[in-house]
């Protein structure tokens, strides 16, 4: 039987390389049709220090093989997550990774502090695609800011720390390196691409926020390129995200060097995609006579130097 186990660093092991991505699975409660046991892990909706109502509608729009979203981080706030959700996660077989968002380094750290040591919280994923109110630009587009944020989060938690990269940059490798150097255990790539749609009948942007994040099959080639670049430069594990819909899509990311994948938009149309892809990967390994997922990669990983 092929081993689909994955190690994300810091001894954080998953039974499957197939995770569900932040914002596409809520907090794990709203998908009655999904067998959670089949998931490698659940990444929660972006969670902030205080509750957020999110953006005014219209928040989503379909595009060619993709969708735009501008939800605005609607979430109940970390207190509710800690007291109402985590106690239930504690009894689940699947680990829950909390996606953390904020407008200042202090915000992020406060969310982590509140959840640190809370049973049911397995790890953190930093969503660094958020605008930094103090310094005007996104954490994720500036290597120094991204490094500072990661370092601050690192010193706030003993749990596995995953940093989610934004692809809306000239040089994603520079950001990834800064995040690795600042102590991230692994990175997930990528978040959505900034896009826009205009309603020509109404003569206005479709989304109330004008622009939003593009996800879905449309971005898969871009995401794969980003993952290929990052896995070629980092020592820590990389989790691939972006338009993954089929077993073949997942294989592309694993061959590109990702140790695992996150499914996002596909969860909306095919609630059982994660299970199907998990099964498909196992079948592929067995058909190819491969022992583990690592043997899929096209390039050798960069081994940590033990100097």
């Amino acid at each position, binding site marked *: 039987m092929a081993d689909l186990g994955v190690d994300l660093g810091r001894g954080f092991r998953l039974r499957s390389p197939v995770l569900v991505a932040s914002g596409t699975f809520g907090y794990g409660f709203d998908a009655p049709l999904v067998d959670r046991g089949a998931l490698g892990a659940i990444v929660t909706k972006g969670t902030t220090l205080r509750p957020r*109502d999110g953006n005014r*509608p219209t928040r989503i729009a379909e*595009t060619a093989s993709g969708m735009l*979203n501008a*939800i605005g981080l*609607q979430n109940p706030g970390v207190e509710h997550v800690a007291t109402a959700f985590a106690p239930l996660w504690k009894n689940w077989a699947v680990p829950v990774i909390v996606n953390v968002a904020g407008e200042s380094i202090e915000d992020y750290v406060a969310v982590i502090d509140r959840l640190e040591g809370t049973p049911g919280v397995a790890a953190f994923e930093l969503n660094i695609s958020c605008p930094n109110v103090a310094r005007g630009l996104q954490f994720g587009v500036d290597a120094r800011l991204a490094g500072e944020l990661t370092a601050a989060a690192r010193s706030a938690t003993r749990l596995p720390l995953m940093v989610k990269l934004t692809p809306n940059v000239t040089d994603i490798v520079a950001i990834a390196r800064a995040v690795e150097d600042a102590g991230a255990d692994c990175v997930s790539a990528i978040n959505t691409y900034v896009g826009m749609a205009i309603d020509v009948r109404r003569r206005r942007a479709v989304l109330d926020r004008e622009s939003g994040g593009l996800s879905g099959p449309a971005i898969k080639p871009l995401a794969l390129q980003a993952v290929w670049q990052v896995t070629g430069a980092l020592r820590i594990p990389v989790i691939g995200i972006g338009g993954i819909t089929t077993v073949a899509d997942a294989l592309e990311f694993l061959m590109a060097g990702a140790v695992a994948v996150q499914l996002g938009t596909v969860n*909306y*149309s095919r*609630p059982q995609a994660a299970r199907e892809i998990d099964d498909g990967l196992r079948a592929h390994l067995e058909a190819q006579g491969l022992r583990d997922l690592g043997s899929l990669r096209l390039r050798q990983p960069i081994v940590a130097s033990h100097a």
Partner: protein
Amino acid sequence: MSPAVLTEAAVVERSIPMAGAVELVLHHPTAAAAARAGQFFQLAVGAPGAILRRPYSVAWARPEIGQIGFIFNIVGTGSAWLASRQRGHAVDLLGPLGQGFVIEPGNRPAVCIAGGLGVAAFPAVVTALMAAGRPVVFLHGARTASQLLPVSRLQGAELRVATDDGTAGLHGSVLDLLASVAVSDVDVFACGPTPMLRRLIEVAQRLELPRSRVQVALETPMGCGVGTCLGCVTPRRGGGYLLTCQDGPCIRADRIDWDGMVDAFHG
């Protein structure tokens, strides 16, 4: 929430119930048994470039023969694809989803208000009202006579009609028909384009019909249909948002912040 199913169902019949609309009858006993009036299903479409399912109200369900019906018009690529399904083809559906209309038994009159394709949801609603013993006045508006759902599909209701071009019933809007109805002690069930629902709220105000007695079926974009994407919000009275797919699509009018309502699709 009624237990949703994710399944393929075979098309047993495809027809044109009225001008500009298509009706698909699917065979699926579990779905037919689970569906409640006002709930919806997310139907997968194989149209080029389409990745999201399309939300459709259950038009009617007949558990005894395991059939469920959907009535829709062609507005874009997804509905065009659905309209091309033929007898024997399979349709991939997820549902029933969301909250249907709350229908209490008793003899208080029910007033149904259907604008345009909003009528699609009503065969099931009328059936449920009849089963609850409620007398039903049905106000049915359409652009023109040929686009009215045949009376036979609304058996048992007292039907009043309005058309924009006057080819049948009152020459005007379905809301003009409200004036002819005693609304002192009734429950209103309304479905139609958002602009019509907004006007209904104004009219109700004038007629001193309390919003708590009005239930509306809303249409917003739907990403997932199950509460995970947060893309379908409707402004909540008192702040924050309702999830149209979970708190709705059928919602009591007094729970909604009508000033914050946007319509992404009509008019």
